[in-house]
């Protein structure tokens, strides 16, 4: 299965650097978080993607030059009620994608709240990307690109409009995040047993230690 693949090495070359990052997806329900992950990890799209309860975990590795970047992705439940679970997933994360649905203004407002919460409570220096999803429904758009662009710029976020359905900008956004994440030390072994930290432990881990 693609998502369980051991990070691949560029063939024949000496094993390159392998970096592992914990990434969390946040956003109102039904904006397409699970769909983005499914597109990124398995290259699939389901019209009737089931809702996510609690959270789901998937991994995917991409290659940047000679670095293999392995994402450990936590896809969370969108409903506000599940909010209390969210910190368990974003704590210790080095990257987050906050998703909204370009056809629904409310989901954009909700995204802003997530950004605020992350900036306040997540790992300092966390890389946050804002994704305006369902780009294929451009005709029904209600959140204008300028608006989000400006917001993202003012808040130091990366920003892209994506479509899990057509796969527009899906790999791109993960790639852009991977490029922005610091890749300092070198290691050949993929991390095993990375835990979800649900206490203060690890929440202040400096980002430079993300490569093991």
């Amino acid at each position: 299965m693609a998502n369980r693949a051991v990070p691949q090495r560029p063939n024949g070359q000496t094993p390159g650097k392998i970096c592992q990052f914990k990434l969390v997806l946040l956003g109102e329900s039904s904006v397409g978080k699970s769909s983005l992950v499914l597109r990124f990890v398995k290259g699939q799209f389901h019209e009737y993607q089931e809702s996510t309860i609690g959270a789901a975990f998937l991994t995917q590795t991409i290659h940047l030059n000679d670095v293999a970047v392995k994402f450990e992705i936590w896809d969370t439940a969108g409903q506000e009620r599940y909010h209390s679970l969210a910190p368990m997933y974003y704590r210790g994360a080095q990257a987050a994608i906050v998703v909204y649905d370009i056809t629904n203004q409310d989901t954009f407002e909700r995204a802003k709240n997530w950004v605020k919460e992350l900036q306040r409570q997540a790992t300092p220096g966390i890389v946050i990307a804002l994704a305006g999803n369902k780009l294929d429904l451009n005709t029904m758009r209600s959140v204008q690109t300028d608006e989000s662009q400006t917001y993202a710029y003012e808040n130091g976020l990366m920003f892209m409009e994506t479509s899990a359905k057509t796969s527009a900008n899906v790999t791109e956004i993960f790639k852009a995040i991977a490029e922005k994440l610091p890749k300092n030390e070198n290691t050949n072994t993929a991390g095993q047993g990375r835990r979800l930290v649900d206490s203060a432990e690890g929440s202040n881990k400096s980002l430079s230690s993300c490569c093991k």
Partner: protein
Amino acid sequence: MTCNCVDAPVPPLFGVQTLFAAQHTSESCGANGLPLTPNSITILGRAQKLRTLNHPNLVLHLDFIRKQHGRIILVSQYFKRSLWTETNNYLLLLPLEKVLSWTHRVLDALTYLNSNGVVHRFLTPQYILFDDEDNVKLFNYGLYYMTNSGKNITFPIGKLKYTAPEVLVLDRDSYKSGPKTDSWSLGIIVLELLLGAQLWPTLKLSQIIRKILSLTHCTDVVMRLAREMGRLTMYQSLPDELKDFLGKCICMDVKKRLCPKELFHHKIFSAYEYSKILMNKCYSCKHPLRQMKLDQVYYLWKLAGGDVEWALKKKGLLRNESPILLLPRLIILEGTLYGNTRNQSSLLDLQIVELPLDLLVNRLQHLKITDYDPLIDQVNKQNDTTEKLPLVIREKDTEYQFRRIILFDRLLAAFPFKLDKLLIEAKKDIPPFFRGEVWACLLNVCGDTESIYMSIDKETAGVTDRQIEVDIPRCHQYNDLLSSSVAHKKLKRVLKAWLVSHPKYVYWQGLDSLCAPFVYLNFCKEHVSYACLTAFVKKYLNDVFLKDNAAVIREYLIKLSHLIAFHDPQLANHLDEKGFIPDLFAIPWFLTMFSHVFPLHKIFHLWDKLLLGDSSYPLFVGLSILTQLRSTLLNSGFNECILLFSDLPEVDIEKCVLESSKFNDATPRSITFRKYELRTETREYDPCLMYEVLQNEFSPRISIYDLVELKSSSLKFLVLDTRPQEFYIEKSIPGSLNIHVREEDLVDENFDLAPCPELSALVNNRGSILIVVDNVFELNKVRSFCRFLVKKEYPKVCSLHGGIEALENFNILVPAIMY
């Protein structure tokens, strides 16, 4: 009186028709961005209601099948004799009484349909059928209703000659035919009957249309029609009341035309004594299958290998065009297709294919007449070897299901009497045919749930409407029925009704999944779905849907951890070491009782057993899923473990329920005691603990009550008394083993028990329930010792809640000398 005889022939009882739903033009999507639901699914959803219609003068609808390319197959009760055949195509002039009697029956049936929001719209002499006893049975009355007044199909409904004029002139998309269209059709039929002639037998369609429209200008429409039929004098000789009746049916002005209900009370029907007409009673022997309910027979026929599609194919009704002919000629970039339109004439085939029942009759041939009507208490006295076969095979076995249906039919009718018997039988298995009803009984749904449900406001907008609306189109949508718009509406209503009637609770994502099996199984009985959901949540998910449910969920999850430690210490140690806590994977399990995790057919088998268990049973299900995956889990690190649950591999449900029952039987009740479960009473020594306490314990606690009960049960157990020997000798539980440990020793990671007779006894009792007891203030020591035992992979470790002190009140303790 008719007699029953297993050798009597069984005529075909079912008729099949097929039609095509309209196809959506291009890949358009709805307002929610999702693709439009295929019309065939919409039809399927609407059609379900027709199965609930039951009137002595209507045939029963039995099945609606959806096939590729929008094909729908309808199965309903069918009789060969119709008004058309009975009158020898109207050549036969019938006595007035008979005509009136039939007409009255048709009106009764139409009135019933109208009161259920259904208009026939396809009334012709061919669709007025007669059963063996000459009872009128209306046929094909569902077409207009299930296609949403013809909106989901592209062909017109109705036979032109009998079609009311307004139907021809008004726009098909905006105009919905009301009950009075049927009055017109019936009027024409009765007129033809009375005059013994056909109206416009040789005219072409266009001519007929012109004729009907030309009636607009005429003062006495009925007389004009009679003249057209060449029977004017005959018409004029009809009794005035009859002419009046016809005039109230065949009336151009819809406002003046009477509806079936009004016609039913027309004075013509009191003027004649037609009720005394001798019915053609059938005295011949009948096969006992014909005493069974028709839907049961149909179900069994399918089990016996009956195949509706095959029957259609055999009659040449499923002509498949070669695929190349179906290719579009032109596809423009945004997706619209041109040139692949279906042949209009194939959209609705009016032919009705009968389903021969030979297969079923042969399969049940060796059954005796008493098998059809057994005494409940004697059922299953005989050894049925089928009972031991795997569930999936039993569910497909015609004879076995026949017996189950016969039995459950009686048990359900008796409910709530015979509940004990119902439980015993349900424990063996639940016949899929009756699953919805049996579940309702197991959940103790009774009383007037319908009016309770009716009285709940399901329409007023609520705060969680948006959430419900985005969740429903993602809920078990692989299932045709649940993906229909009717199903979406039902799910929403049931959920809203539940929320409104439980103000303490809120909508949590997942509640939709939980609701889906009930809606599916009680599709036409929303109130039962609602009552089942209510009872289910109360029993298994008490307080889980509180706005702040953290405490409830956390307790649930920690109990699962305890249970793993209790039954599978090796797995517990591994998961603990990897930090793989149930919070990471089991929330959707318990929040939805696995309904979000498994597809419907698996949920059915799982809940069949779950519903027989108590509120802790789901924990055992969780445990048995884990043990099914244990070898993979034991060889996996954190990431692999998590991935395993993100994409749950095939779980063998039959094995899972078997295992969970075993676990359940091997576990004293207090081990899974939860503070938040619904119970009638909590006794003083039940382990009712705060989460903060539970969290610090790796193994569960057992109550004194269970300890006392264990003495007289078949479960093996051993009490480990960890106090210093002097206290043990002074006073202890008879039969307990004294293994004195000190708290400070247990801190050492390498701590082990020194060899001694007690240790040998412990080793020899591996597998028994091990109950650790000490003074109540030695809580930490007890915890550490339990953890030590689990590390050593001793199964069934627990500690006695309340410690040795609690036992003082139970008169159990004795000086060790005495035994």
